[in-house]
């Protein structure tokens, strides 16, 4: 590598690390230096190896991998030979044609579409047909070519148009109808096989197809990204495509994909949290002085109490009552909090949970009867009796009923968690319930999934309730939720 080349490489890497840092990934100076050392040993042309080399030195947490990968793809998308785009941003036609011809030679299908010289000449129906075939055979090269073709044809991308990548993705996929594709593929596979397949075989086949369709989607996404980068430049793109880390995703606005990554992030998190809490409990060594033991041990020093002995500490585990609003807007937040609380329920002496919309119901038993938290949550959502009049949040009524029915169980050992955005639809607040509760319980906390700036705007009356509690906490994402729970136990 020549000196100028090396300079260029270092500049490139410096910019990349800057992007990573801006996305919230902690990259230290030593790690940056390691990466610079690493790229001297791995050629940039070997893209996969290059990516892993950078990841190994820059990323030290698996949860950050996806963010890293996205930024990598954007930042280095124009710098690998196989992803070259020519000047007007179109995929090089020569490659496609060649690929297409190869494909025809290989398949020798001769079912009428042999005459078409290039993918460009195909009708949308033929494209769909071709796509289905390539998906069924798992033909990677053709899938990639088709992804390019589909984006070129359906996405309707125009230079300089200020729309995000998701819009183009949506347009492309709508034209391809991938959901219908799966059923068609299953049908076709069933026709082709000689013997009727068992349910197990069907399941496996369906999964294989789903896997390939997902691959194809990823390919389309990557293609759109490449074109956008060509249009707008890597730096600008990295900013718009940046995805928040799982622990920073907001509960209230998470997409379906983000929900899944959240759910995945939750499990290791609870494990870590439980281990940390157990350790914390154990490490608080010193209990009160154990007088008997001290005197007994003083005998070996001739009656001088030289070595004070302490009682083994038995910190009381808090008793927890979770009262959660599960109406549409905050349902996801309630779900995650319940999952987290039950995953570490060993840290509490007792956990009881209640859910409400405008009526309230106890759901503790759902969690007791099964070990599977997800199933319990599902039952909470489907079976709990939470609607009283119209199914719009009514905190006042819910609290009133809670106090009437379960108020006697709240005692000086109980910590009560109230979850919700306190958007009361202008019903009566009945804040006196919270006040009385706070008088009896050890602590009352309110967790609000809304950003602090939205509190007490519109029909939100969190201030009215919050006044009587020991604290109102903003819990917009997993990170905030985690730090609150750690404080609690």
């Amino acid at each position, binding site marked *: 590598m020549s000196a100028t080349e090396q300079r260029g490489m270092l500049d490139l890497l410096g910019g990349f690390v800057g992007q990573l840092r801006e996305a919230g990934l902690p990259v230290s100076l030593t*790690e940056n230096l*390691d990466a610079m050392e*690493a790229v001297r040993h791995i050629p940039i042309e070997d893209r996969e190896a290059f990516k892993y080399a950078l990841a190994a030195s820059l990323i*030290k947490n698996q949860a950050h991998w996806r963010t890293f990968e996205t930024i990598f793809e954007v930042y280095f998308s124009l710098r690998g030979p196989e992803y070259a785009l020519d000047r007007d941003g179109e995929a090089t036609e020569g490659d496609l044609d060649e690929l297409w011809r190869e494909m025809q030679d290989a398949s020798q299908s001769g079912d009428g579409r042999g005459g078409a010289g290039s993918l460009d000449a195909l009708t949308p129906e033929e494209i769909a047909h071709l796509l289905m075939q390539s998906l069924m055979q798992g033909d990677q090269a053709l899938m990639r070519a088709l992804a390019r073709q589909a984006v070129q044809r359906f996405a309707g991308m125009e230079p300089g148009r200020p729309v995000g990548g998701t819009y183009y993705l949506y347009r492309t996929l709508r034209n391809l109808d991938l959901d219908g594709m799966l059923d068609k593929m299953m049908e076709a596979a069933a026709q082709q096989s000689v013997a009727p397949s068992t349910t*197990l075989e069907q399941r496996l086949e369906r*999964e294989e197809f789903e896997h390939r369709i997902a691959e194809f989607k990823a390919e389309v996404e990557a293609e759109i990204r490449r074109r956008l980068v060509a249009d707008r430049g890597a730096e600008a793109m990295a900013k718009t495509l940046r995805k928040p880390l799982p622990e920073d995703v907001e509960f209230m606005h998470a997409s379906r994909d983000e929900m899944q990554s959240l759910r995945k992030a939750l499990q290791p998190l609870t494990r*870590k949290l439980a281990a*940390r809490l157990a350790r914390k409990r154990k490490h608080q060594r010193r209990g009160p002085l154990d007088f008997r033991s001290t005197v007994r041990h003083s005998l070996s020093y001739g009656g001088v109490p030289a070595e004070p002995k302490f009682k083994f500490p038995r910190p009381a585990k808090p008793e927890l009552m979770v009262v959660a609003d599960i109406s549409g807007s905050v349902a996801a937040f309630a779900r995650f909090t319940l999952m987290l609380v039950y995953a570490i329920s060993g840290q509490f002496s007792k956990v009881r949970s209640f859910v409400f919309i405008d009526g309230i119901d106890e759901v503790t038993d759902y969690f007791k009867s099964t070990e599977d938290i997800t199933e319990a949550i599902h039952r909470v959502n489907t079976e709990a009796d939470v609607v009283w009049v119209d199914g719009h949040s009514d905190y006042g009524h819910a609290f009133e009923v809670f106090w009437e029915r379960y108020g006697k169980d709240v005692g000086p050992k109980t910590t009560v968690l109230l979850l919700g955005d306190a958007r009361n639809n202008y019903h009566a607040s009945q804040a006196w319930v919270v006040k009385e509760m706070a008088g009896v319980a050890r602590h009352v906390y309110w967790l609000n999934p809304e950003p602090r700036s939205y509190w007490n705007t519109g029909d939100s009356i969190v201030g009215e309730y919050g006044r009587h509690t020991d604290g109102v906490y903003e819990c917009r994402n997993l990170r905030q939720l985690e730090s609150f729970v750690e404080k609690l136990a």
Partner: protein
Amino acid sequence: MAGSVGLMASEQVQRFESVQMVRDGLRDLDYLADDGIAGVAYLADRLGKPVLVEGPAGTGKTQLAKSIAELTGARLVRLQCYEGLDESKALFEWNYKKQLLRIQADRGSDSWTELHDDIFSDEFLLTRPLLEAITADDPVVLLIDEVDRVEVETEALLLEILSDYQVSIPELGTIEAKQIPLVFLTSNNTRELSEALKRRCLYLHVDYPSMEREREIVLAKVPDITENLADQIARVVRSIRSMDLKKAPSVSETLDWARTLMLLNIETIDEEIAKETLHILLKYQTDIAKAAKELSVDE
């Protein structure tokens, strides 16, 4: 030993020529590495840095260190971590009994200073894995297994050896490495490791293998298995992993399952067989029930 001078990193013999060589070498030893694994192993050699391998249990993290040791013809020095591990178990310890004997053996003859220098010398030093790894004359691979089990405070023990390949002993001075060993740390991710430790390491996440790789692992590790059966096994395992289970089947459990099916002389897997042998793949009763239900009911 005191004051022995270690080789500089630049003089270090390079063990691997290319990433491809690592991959092929590991393949010959029946360890199927993907791009990431081979690349990171190669880098670790070139940069002289330890590798932190993280991932779910049973995905071949420890095996990676063993295979690399075998590939480079090095001896494997292993430190198994556990809660309560301390300096005297990980680094070195003075052989108190021998020191005591030495003092008693020539009582009154030596002067105090001579005796003092004498009992704090190599002869009375018991080397533990970490010290052993850096003072060894033959090539070694150091494996620090399940590093997430030690307390955060104990991690600090490792820092000096990981960044500078040296150990400081108050009575003897600093012992530097005669050669820079390849170091692998494994973690099951039960807790977040400290930043200081992570910063000193290259990071490698070993996840469950892709279906194609798993099939090849089964083919490589289970003798006489047909390709058809290996393919089916990999597919069923992928299907089970996609379910929402407490503990997804690991690679070692996949291999156990494959061997069991071989013993039972099974050519093709159908639902009945899958359900009857599920307990080899899954270890929780709730998981088994759930998987059995999902496998038989098509959604």
